[in-house]
């Protein structure tokens, strides 16, 4: 039986066999309200929501689809109705007297569809006069849906693999990981004639490195850039073989899973007696890691994003650069998870201005940026690609086209995958989507003849370098 019959995305077959869903959903809702901090927000939002529709004017999906179902306020109201009816006194009394709204299976199916049409990018929150955080409501609604087993299969199997399987979302076993890193070390030798190590299980290191684990499969240049920065700055870092995955899909569908995944990161840092978490180029991994103090308390290890580290080192003059710069026109896409709250917006820009000759901004940007269209975990759901790159990605494609950039830098594994697909599907095939450390790698001066040689971007593209396929075949071996 096809498990995509009901929703746009696949779910596990068992999800279709769950019975008595409205009661289970309400039981989960009651438990969540009891133990979490969502109740006060729901109370405030239900009372004050003014229905002014300013959120519609800021939602890239509604701008493209013009379907009223895509107005953030309307989507959130799906959950508000349930809350008002079952968890406020007025709602309960009103239902006793007049009947009215009842939670049904069909209503739950509508929620299941609608809350996965939102990427929880939280752009609408910035423009809501009341301050309603529709991203928070999407986050909460997805958790409640997960408790009745409505979870996109792509997200579920990744979390299962991470928490109960091999230990990471891409199911990369330790020998394959080490093999990949050895391969990248050889690349450093071949391309730059420099010996750079990917250090494993170094006890007492300052930083434990948590990239999106998929980088080990897909983003060899980003990883080499990370290692290169740590090498030239004499950074004390290590990759823990107990846990080397920064990805946390709990953020996208379940606080229960999120808590477990974050705790595993902290456990690995403590196992290695290290002091800090160094997150790779990944937006949601960074935001999830920022939740470490929530779960680990006052002595939680501090979290540093690799761009913050690189920026600090560049400012301190500890990253030697070649005389050449990136010649192509480069633009920067702000990943929502690190930029919306204004936490990381300037560091990558300052790095890019230092290493690119023709850096241009997308408009709008920073806290008002448009989502890549694959946020909230939707990028992992391959079966909704036409939605992601169509109505959801249209604005982003227009934004990129307007910059006339040849290279889009996005320091996020999810954004990179999505932006590549957006470019492919929107006649922007010539645009290259890369990570920030990919470009940094090209201009770092390792002090060897090979690394100081000048080369154009085109030459760089054409030369032998670690291909995704090569890395994957290494892992397959």
């Amino acid at each position, binding site marked *: 039986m096809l498990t995509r019959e009901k929703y746009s995305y696949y779910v596990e077959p068992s999800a279709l066999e769950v019975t008595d869903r409205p009661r289970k959903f309400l039981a989960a809702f009651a*438990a969540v309200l009891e133990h979490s901090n969502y109740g006060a927000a729901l109370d405030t939002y239900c009372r*004050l929501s003014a229905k002014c529709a*300013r959120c519609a004017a800021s939602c890239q999906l509604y701008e493209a689809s013009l379907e009223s179902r895509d107005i953030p306020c309307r989507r959130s109201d799906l959950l508000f109705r349930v809350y008002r009816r079952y968890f406020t006194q007025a709602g309960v009394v009103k239902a006793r007297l007049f009947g009215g709204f009842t939670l049904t299976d069909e209503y739950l199916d509508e929620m299941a569809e609608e809350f996965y049409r939102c990427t929880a990018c939280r752009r609408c929150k910035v423009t809501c006069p009341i301050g309603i955080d529709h991203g928070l409501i999407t986050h909460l609604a997805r958790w409640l849906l997960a408790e009745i087993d409505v979870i996109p299969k792509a997200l579920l199997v990744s979390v299962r693999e991470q928490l109960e399987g091999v230990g990471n979302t891409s199911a990369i076993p330790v020998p394959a990981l080490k093999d990949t890193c050895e391969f990248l070390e050889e690349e450093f030798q071949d391309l730059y004639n420099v010996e750079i190590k990917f250090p494993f299980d170094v006890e007492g290191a300052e930083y434990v490195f948590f990239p999106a684990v998929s980088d080990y499969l897909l983003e060899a240049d980003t990883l080499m850039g990370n290692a290169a920065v740590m090498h030239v700055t004499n950074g004390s870092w290590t990759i823990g073989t107990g846990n080397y995955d920064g990805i946390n899909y709990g953020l996208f569908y379940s606080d229960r899973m999120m808590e477990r995944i974050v705790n595993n990161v902290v456990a690995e840092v403590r196992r290695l007696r290290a002091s800090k978490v160094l997150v790779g180029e990944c937006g949601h991994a960074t935001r999830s890691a920022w939740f470490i103090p929530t779960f680990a308390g006052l002595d939680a290890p501090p979290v540093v994003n690799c761009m913050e580290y690189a920026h600090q080192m560049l400012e301190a003059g500890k990253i030697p650069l070649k005389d050449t710069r990136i010649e192509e026109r480069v633009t920067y896409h702000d990943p929502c998870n690190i930029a919306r709250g204004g936490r990381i917006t300037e560091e990558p820009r300052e790095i890019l201005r230092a290493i690119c000759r023709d850096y241009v901004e997308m408009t709008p940007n920073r806290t008002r940026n448009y989502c890549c269209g694959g946020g909230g975990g939707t990028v992992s759901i391959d079966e909704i690609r036409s939605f992601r790159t169509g109505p959801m990605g249209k604005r982003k494609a227009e934004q990129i086209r307007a910059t006339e950039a040849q290279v889009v830098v996005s320091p996020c594994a999810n954004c990179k995958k999505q932006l590549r697909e957006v470019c492919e599907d929107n006649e922007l095939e010539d645009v290259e989507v890369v990570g920030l450390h990919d470009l940094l790698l090209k201009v770092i001066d390792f002090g060897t003849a090979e690394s100081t040689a000048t080369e154009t971007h085109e030459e760089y593209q054409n030369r032998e370098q670690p291909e995704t396929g090569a890395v994957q075949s290494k892992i397959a071996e």
Partner: protein
Amino acid sequence: MVLGLLRHAVVTVSEIGKMVRRAGNKDIAYRQILLATVKWLFPVGQVRRRFFFSFTTLTFHVAVIVVPIFLAGHIALWKSGIGLSWPAISNGLADVLTITAVATAALLVVQRATARDSRALSRFSDYVLPVVIAVPFVSGFLVMHPVWNPFSYDATLFVHVMSGNVLLVLIPMTKLSHMALLPTTQLVSELAWHFPPDAGSKVGVDLGKEGQPI
């Protein structure tokens, strides 16, 4: 109204206290929250987006806040009632603002009904509230200008006072309560992301899912 809003304020403040107490991460970005709160309490810079609607609603808010509080006649009532008084606006300015309030209330209804997105969101109350708010302004204007008033003075004054009372009753029961709660909303939104450290596992226990395979 006062009791209703006071109840809202007390409940909200106690909820905020509870959220902060339960939050695993007590490092809260108060400065950023304050800036966002002030930005939306005085949203002059936000008018560019959806210009007509935003301009109308901003003007409407200025008029409906200023006139009832700073009208000389109202201040005289406060003075005779509890002895408090404060500077008043001129009656001429009050007239202009009153006409503005009525006109913008009407425009709000029209704009809500004609824009595709706001129409899709609107409830019955969203159309009715601006009209209800306009009634005390229309009647108040007629009370101030008996020459133009086709109705009896006493009847108009009665409508003015009673419609004002209706509004006072409605404020705590409707979205109008934002007049008291708006300063707290940005804080509440931010605190909702400050999870209690073990909320997830406790929910798992409650639902009997502890230790269950994923």
